[in-house]
């Protein structure tokens, strides 16, 4: 059952990213370029996404169990620590350089660009390296 939910959610997410403009690194850089020829479009992506989740999550998480059964798998960390800020900073640096974050990078594989594939492979190695060299303290 959850496999079907996950597939549908994935398809919607990929479609939403393509529609939103997030799959274009130039669009992303145009959004981040606030002192240049700024294109604020992508603020509407996060705004639209959060407008939905802030309402839907409120009701979904009131329940003891997920609507479709099983249990909630939620992040347990609550502390704002150095890992969070350093990690987010490294991510921001890579996002600014490549213009791609993980979702759009995977989605863009649909458009068969070898350069996107190289980014995705490098991203996979980045995760592997971080897991080996800087594993979270709890695991």
């Amino acid at each position: 059952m959850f496999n079907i939910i996950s597939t549908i959610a994935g398809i919607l997410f990929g479609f939403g990213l393509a529609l939103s403009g997030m799959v274009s690194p130039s669009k992303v850089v145009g959004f981040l370029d606030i002192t240049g020829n700024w294109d604020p479009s992508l603020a509407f992506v996060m705004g639209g996404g959060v407008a939905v989740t802030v309402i839907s999550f409120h009701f979904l998480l009131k329940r003891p169990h997920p609507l479709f059964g099983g249990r909630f798998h939620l992040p347990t960390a609550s502390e704002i620590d150095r890992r969070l800020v350093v990690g987010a900073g490294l991510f921001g640096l890579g996002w600014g350089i490549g213009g791609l974050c993980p979702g759009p990078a995977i989605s863009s594989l649909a458009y068969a660009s070898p350069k996107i594939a190289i980014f995705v492979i490098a991203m996979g190695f980045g995760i592997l390296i971080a897991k080996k060299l800087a594993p979270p303290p709890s695991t």
Partner: protein
Amino acid sequence: MDNFTPILSLAGGLILGISATILLAGGRIAGISGIISGLIPPAAADKKWRVLFLLGLIGGAALFPTVGGDISYIDINPYGFSDDLHYVALIVGGLLVGMGTSIGSGCTSGHGICGLGRISARALTATLSFMAVAVVTVFVIRLVMGG
């Protein structure tokens, strides 16, 4: 403000929110970096839904042009790098995105769309941090490239 697309971007964002809602109705957070991370050693035990979600991502993006969506706007080389330099940028950028999202436990979707939806202070801190660093990064690259 060339190429300003508030309606399409808002519509895309709403769809992302709906997707995250569906996944949470199944108990999971739609954080793409976390979903990928579970497939990379040491991997999580539950791989199938992760693979299906990621294949769905590719499928959904592939579907977009077949229903009349315009993908001609996509430009993967925003700074006009030479081919060689662009490869370096993609490799360095990819490594940093992978390491950063792993260490920082999330990306634009997990911290941005889902974490803010849960009104998490951690997610807000992460989102402000990666946005700020990305803005500075773009500023510096533009400065160096003379654009």
